[in-house]
């Protein structure tokens, strides 16, 4: 069951990703992106990362994508996308390079599924036990507020800086 769901989600995610790249209309691209994000959230659930799946939907698909959509609408980009995505030397080169990278990555990562590698890792049992003991939220929250608390606080600062920066840059007259 899990395997099947995984392949379904994976297929949707791949299809969405290809749609993002090859859909000329930006709004269409954006909708494909939402599909990809949603299916990735599904995969997260399959990997027992329920909290992240929720955040993925709420923050990514909900907030960030809406922000992109806002900008597209704001800039009124619905009509001059015909020139985008022209075949040419650049496109061929891009396919060649990314194809090469993909080939290398797939070839290398294919070996990670072998039983030898998986047995070397602690395995899903340890995670299952952790989640059982502390709950899904607790297992993330505990290290986040103890070992990584400084980084966590800094992300707050980072968001503040980004907020101020975005306003300062986008505002017409400062």
């Amino acid at each position: 069951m899990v395997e099947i769901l995984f392949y379904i989600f994976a297929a949707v995610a791949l299809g969405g990703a290809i749609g993002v790249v090859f859909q000329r209309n930006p709004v269409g691209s954006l909708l494909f992106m939402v599909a990809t994000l949603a299916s990735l959230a599904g995969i997260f659930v399959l990997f027992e990362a329920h909290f992240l799946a929720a955040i993925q939907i709420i923050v990514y698909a909900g907030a960030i994508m809406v922000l992109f959509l806002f900008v597209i609408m704001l800039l009124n980009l619905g009509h001059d996308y015909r020139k985008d995505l022209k075949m040419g030397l650049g496109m061929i080169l891009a396919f060649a390079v990314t194809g090469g990278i993909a080939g290398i990555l797939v070839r290398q990562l294919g070996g990670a599924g072998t039983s030898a590698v998986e047995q070397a890792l602690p395995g899903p049992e340890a995670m299952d036990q952790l989640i059982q003991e502390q709950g899904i939220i607790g297992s993330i929250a505990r290290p986040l507020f103890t070992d990584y608390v400084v980084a966590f606080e800094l992300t707050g600062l980072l968001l503040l800086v980004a907020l101020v920066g975005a306003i300062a840059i986008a505002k017409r007259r400062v």
Partner: protein
Amino acid sequence: MLAEALILSAILFVIGMLGVLVRRNVIIMFLCIELMLNAVNLSFVALSRFIGIEGQIYVFFVMTVAAAEAAVGLAIIISIFRHYETVDVNNFNLLKW
């Protein structure tokens, strides 16, 4: 399932990269960068299932950075658009001396 997830992550990443290379619409390029970030998140989550909870924590931080990046990046795009009246990167050639 780990190997499959990692391969999916790699392919998503490369597709994102391809998008950055072939698209000329700045917003879509930006979107492709988000796609690459998500691909990385996927590998983090997949590995955290087998190694430990830290992977999920990193995903958390990556999301925060992505949100910040999206805010600032879109602000820059608005600012650029205001100047050039376009989002076609071929018209931006100021990145040289």
